[in-house]
């Protein structure tokens, strides 16, 4: 069986990380990834860009609406996710609007943070900024 482990955290907590906090968290991720790989259960792990980079897509009566910001409704539950490799946000939105749930719920399009996958296969923080 595949399990998704979804990570939740208040944004101000992760934003206020010191270098040492960050290194500690990174160490934890690295250990977990090494262990899950050693156990043969690792599939993939991704860090998402901050919520400020999010775009919400909804389709109502065939009309696509694209808006700034994350999908903030509280009564909806997370049903699943797609990861697509697109050149631009517009291209990602083109696929997002075709997800059937865009017509009743909403789709949040959030960039995945870029990790340099160096030869050593070691986890690194994204290089932007």
């Amino acid at each position: 069986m595949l399990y998704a482990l979804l990570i939740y955290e208040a944004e101000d907590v992760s934003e206020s990380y010191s270098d040492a906090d960050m290194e500690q968290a990174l160490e934890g991720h690295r250990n977990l990834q090494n262990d899950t790989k050693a156990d043969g259960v690792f599939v993939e792990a991704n860090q998402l860009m901050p919520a400020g980079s999010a775009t919400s897509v909804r389709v109502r009566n065939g009309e696509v609406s694209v808006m700034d910001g994350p999908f903030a409704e509280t009564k909806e539950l997370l049903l699943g996710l797609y990861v697509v490799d697109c050149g631009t946000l517009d291209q990602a939105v083109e696929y997002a609007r075709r997800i059937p749930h865009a017509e009743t719920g909403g789709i949040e399009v959030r960039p995945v943070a870029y990790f340099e996958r160096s030869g050593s296969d070691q986890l690194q923080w994204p290089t932007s900024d």
Partner: protein
Amino acid sequence: MADLGLTLRAAQPQALATLIRVLGDLTLAEDVLQEACVRAIGKWPEIGIPENPVAWLVATGRNHAIDLFRRRALEERHAGAMAVLDEADQAAWNEIETGADIVLKDDLTRLIFTCCHPALSPDAQVALTLKTVAGLSVEEIAHAFLAAPRTMEQRIVRAKRKIRDAGIPYEVPGPAELPERLTSVLQVAYLIFNEGYKASRGDAIVRHELAQQAIRLARILSRLFRAEPEVTGLLALMLLQHARRDARADRDGALIPLDEQDRTRWDRALIAEGRALIEKTLRRKRPGPYQIQAAIAAVHGVSQSHAETDWREIAALYALLEKYQPSPVVTLNRAVAVAQVDGPRAALELLDVIGDSPDMQRYRYYHASRAAFLADLGDRSGARAAYERALLLTENQPERAFLEKKISEQK
């Protein structure tokens, strides 16, 4: 060299748009353009204003970027940095140097669509468009929106970060998305214009400057999208509305309704320009909401007085506008025109159609118009009740005084 500042300012948006494409980064493009402008201020008095100021700024900005990359390459031994520039489209670059308009035009169009992308909040779209396309400083934008410069700066920084992080493209949308995306570009321009006319704003000079920036933006848009009649329609609408700027408010800033405005204070030159534009555009027979609203404003613009207005034409134009942009407010405006042509009974029948709308029940002009029609029919108690509803919804003091006078007349 009195023109130096003006020339420099006029050339900046275009130079920025091209530098973004050449360098592939909005913030870097802004930084090197700023350096190029500093150099222009130093050099131009000496060498004269270049024949093609945009090309001069782009070349100087690009050279500055190359210097920056070289320095960084030395410091960080980051050999890859130079490759960014080598990859820049050399063929397009040569065209810029020879001043090929088509390339420049495409750059500016791309920049406008990036700034008005729906994945940015409306506030961010407005701020970014004023900063990059209209070339206003952060202080000027903050002043226009009565915001602290720091707040405005943060809004712009956040918008630029979103463009970069989310991968908002620097490109003109494909034919399928173009009409909708162009509509949102026009909305941003009209939002800026209307912001200049918010009655809550005290400083008339600031308001007029914002409206003028919106008109400048609309002029740029109508040059870029010659084939789109709605773009010219929006420009004409702005010109015709702006023509009434000196007549539409009294000394205290209270709004004066159209029928009470001193028409000698309307700007005849702007009316003539707006009218010529809309007449030419309507001949293309592809009407839309902005063109129709401009046509209505043009009819008012040439009328000597409220009574001498061609109300039949206005009523017909509102009926057409209802088809393109149905809304209770449009129907209310149509009813006001119909009252002048077919009398109050026909106008009241139209109001009955929209009377159930909660927006109209809360709208003081709906009740005030209905009251006036009822009074014309001799229904004093009905008119008084409707004026009283309008009074309950009005906070503006001169308007309250007007309504109170009307109520006392119905006793």
